[in-house]
Structures are given as structure tokens and as C-alpha cells.
């Protein structure tokens, strides 16, 4: 199976090699949450809901009295993958992804402004078609903004596939979480053997993706603010 058609230069799904998947972001999809968002990247679709800042529920978890406690749970719906199977809750993979998402969001949340409080971020994968953790981070950013939680920057995430850079077998991908204004990488995950130069190219590509997503997310948020403003006027 060729990932990039050598004649046309298009990928299997009809995209150009460095074209990003279709993005869709929507704010306020879970009525009772303090903030929520839906984010789609191609066929990957996730929902994030934010509850808080609220009182710390379990005092034992409070890290210190200076910062807010941020918690995160990542969950996949049983029907989110092609083959249906029961997914055990709290397996090793979702525990790690929860940790990764939590620490990535912590890099942008101004936790010192909300001491002794707790912020819960829940992400639910409805459809998994690659890049779920990136989609979750983008959804979480939108949901946090929707909840009005102070952030120092918009953190977005994008994964770049290697397939179309060099026609190597397998799909080693690099996932980057990026703080756009600060121009800094907070999340970086990669597994595959790559020469360092190639890695740099892929990482740069993923960073470009993050910047594009940040632009999109900013648009969604602006649009939402305009809508809210309209509603207030009436």
C-alpha cells in the first residue's frame, strides 16, 4: 500500500502530502459543564468537558496551596474504533494519555490564579482515526477557554506522519503540543527509529500544524464571543 501516489502526489485520503485534515471545532456542546467543546480532525472526533474551578473534592490530592489542582481523564467510547471491543477503564494507555494531556494543559493554565481549587478536564473519544491525543488537547483548549479559565497561551497539538516525508514503512508519528505565542513546545512524543535530521523536519512540520490549528481555534473562539455578545444585546 502506497501512502502517497507517486503519479498524482496525493495521499490515500486525497490530501496533498502536507495538507492538514479537515478541522472542526465547536464550543458549548455539553450543556451542564462549565466549559465544553467538540473537536474534529478528519475522522477523529472528541468531546472535552471542563468542570471547575471548584472546591477541591479530595483534599489529599491537593498538591500545594498556591496552585489549582488540574485533573484529567481520557476515555474512549467502545464504538470509537473500527473493531468494537470493550475497553477496560484505566488501562495503561489511557492512564498515560490522561497524564500527558493533564501536564500539557497545565503548561498553559494560570494555576496560581486559582489556589485551593480544582479543574477537571474530561475528554471522550467518539471516533478514533489517528491523532486522538492531539485532538483531545485541542478540544481541551477550547473547553478551558469556554469555561473562562485563565490561560497564558493557546496550547494546540498536531501530529505529523512520517509516511509522506520519506516513503518509509509503518507510520511513526510525532505528536507536538505547542504554545503558539510563546513559541515553545510543551508536549513531544515520538516512537520510531529516525535519524536526527529527519526528526527535526517532522517536528517542524508538526509545529506548523499546531500554528495552523491555533489560528483556527482562535477563530472559533472569536466567533463564539461574537455570538455571545449578540445574545447579550438582545
Amino acid at each position, binding site marked *: 500500500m502506497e501512502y502517497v501516489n507517486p503519479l498524482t502526489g496525493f495521499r490515500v485520503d486525497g490530501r496533498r502530502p502536507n495538507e492538514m485534515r479537515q478541522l472542526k471545532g465547536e464550543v458549548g456542546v455539553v*450543556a451542564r459543564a462549565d466549559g465544553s467543546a467538540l473537536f474534529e480532525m478528519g475522522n477523529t472526533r472528541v468531546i472535552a468537558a471542563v468542570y471547575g474551578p471548584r472546591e477541591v473534592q479530595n483534599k489529599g490530592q491537593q498538591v500545594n496551596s498556591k496552585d489549582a489542582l488540574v485533573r484529567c481523564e481520557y476515555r474512549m467510547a467502545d464504538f470509537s474504533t473500527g473493531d468494537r471491543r470493550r475497553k477496560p477503564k484505566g488501562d495503561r494507555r489511557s492512564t498515560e494519555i490522561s497524564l500527558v494531556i493533564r501536564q500539557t494543559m497545565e503548561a498553559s493554565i494560570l494555576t496560581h490564579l486559582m489556589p485551593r481549587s480544582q479543574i477537571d478536564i474530561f475528554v*471522550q473519544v467518539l471516533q478514533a482515526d489517528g491523532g486522538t491525543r492531539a485532538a483531545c488537547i485541542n478540544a481541551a483548549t477550547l473547553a478551558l477557554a469556554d469555561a473562562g479559565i485563565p490561560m497564558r497561551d493557546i496550547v494546540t497539538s498536531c501530529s505529523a506522519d512520517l509516511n509522506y516525508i520519506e516513503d518509509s514503512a509503518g507510520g511513526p508519528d510525532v505528536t507536538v503540543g505547542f504554545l503558539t505565542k510563546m513559541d515553545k513546545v510543551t508536549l513531544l512524543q515520538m516512537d520510531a527509529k529516525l535519524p536526527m535530521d529527519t526528526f527535526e523536519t517532522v517536528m517542524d512540520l508538526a509545529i506548523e500544524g499546531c500554528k495552523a490549528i491555533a489560528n483556527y481555534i482562535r477563530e472559533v473562539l472569536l466567533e463564539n464571543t461574537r455570538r455571545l455578545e449578540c445574545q447579550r444585546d438582545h
Partner: protein
Amino acid sequence: MVGLSEGEKHFIRGGIAQDLRTDGRRRLQFRAISVETGVIPQANGSARVRLGATEVIATVKAELGKPSILHPDKGKVSIFVDCSPTAAPMFEGRGSEEFSAELCVALQRCLLGGKSGAGAAIDLSSLIVVDGKVCWDLYIDGLVVSSDGNLLDALAAAIKVALSDTGIPKVNVSLSATTDEEPEVNVSDEEFLQFDTSSVPVIVTLTKVGKHYIVDATSEEESQMSSAVSVSVNRHGQIRGLTKRGGAGLDPSVIFDMISVAKHVSRQFISVLDSETLAAEAAE
């Protein structure tokens, strides 16, 4: 889950007693319902149902399997429910398991019939491909995305719509191998068979608050309930299942009363659901 002050509780109960609920509805009035079909393309059928701020997704996946030895002429259907923590922080971790299981059992009771599969809302013998060898296994998954009360009715409605949205691939069995060997099965990519979903019921839950009962309770209203009776009714007005929750006892005559009210309400509910489904299918 819901933190209410004494005044708020009083207001809710008083409103119900006067047939004017906090959101302006009458006691036997549903919230606005919206339906979307085909929301999960990987599934054979799927639907999203919103009842006010409650939102659920139901999917149907069909996989080829082997019929059980006891019922070689029937396919299998199973139902699972999961409550996402996005709906409420209390569903975090294992917090949703107990509640999900309760919803799941209630749905199984209404849809799957007896142990033998007799009386199931889905004709299990229509799922058979080769007697005793190959059948379709249907996996019905319900996911609660946002919760504002009346999850059971919303899930049952979503499952009903998802089932009517479901297309099962047509299967060609090669005749040569119908003897002892594993039959060769050819699953078609183009032709799909639809279910007969006419006998799939909806569930109407009557929640008793004070002396009265209401339909489609919000979570604030549910927090004030003494008991709730869920009645599943099909298109023909037949009762398919009955579940009572909550500690308080009910006089049998009240239950009969509730059943007939549920039957009456279900007729309207089914017709609203039907028209919404048609609109959703047209929009898809």
C-alpha cells in the same frame, strides 16, 4: 449530584403540584427532542438524541459470529451503556459503572426479551446467516455525553433510531460448503438489509414527585423524586417492560394508572420521534 437549596426544592415541588414546572412545561410534557442519524460512520447504525440538555449517542455494530448451541437458529444482541465523565464529574473513573449497569439492565429488559430470546424487540431469527454456524452479533452501545435527567428514555429513543438507521450487509453463502466445513461467507459492500424496527419500544419514565408524577424529568426534578416507573411501550401500545426505581412504595392502583398514562404519552412521543427521525434521515 445536584445541590439545591430548601427554597429551590420547594419551588420545584410546588411547581409540579400546580402543573407548571420550573422550565415552563406541564407535568406530562417532554422537552424538545432533536435527533441526528449516522453520527458515527464506523458503526452500522448510529443516532444522537438530545432531550433538552441531555444528550446520548447510540450505535449498532454488526459482526459475524457463531450462534449459541442452545439457540442455533438465532443471532445474538447485546447492549452496553457507558456514562462519559464529560456528562458529570461523578462518572469519572469507575464512578459510572454502577449507574451504567443499572441503565443497561433496564434497557436489556425492554429490548432483549427472555433468556431464550423469545419476545425480543429485534427478531433474533432474522440475524441468522447459516443455521448453527454463522449469525450476526449485534452490539448496541449507548454513551451518555451530557446528562440532565431522564437518561433511560433518551437512551431507548436513541437505540430505536439507531436500529432503524442500521444497515446489515447482505451475506452470500456459497452452497458448496454447507456441510461440515466452515461455510464460506461473502459479505457484500453494497447491499444492505434494514431491520424491522416496528416492534422496538420507547421507554417513558414517570417520575413521582410529591403526589404527582411527571415525564422527562430534569436532574433537579429527579433529585426530588420518591420513585420512578419506566414503562416501555411499542408502536402497537403493548407494554414490553417495566422497571421501578426509588425506595418509596407505590400503591398497585397507582402503577396501573401510571401504565395507562405512559401508554398514552408514548403514542405522542413515538410520533414526534418518528417525524424527527425522518427529518434527520432526510438531512443526512
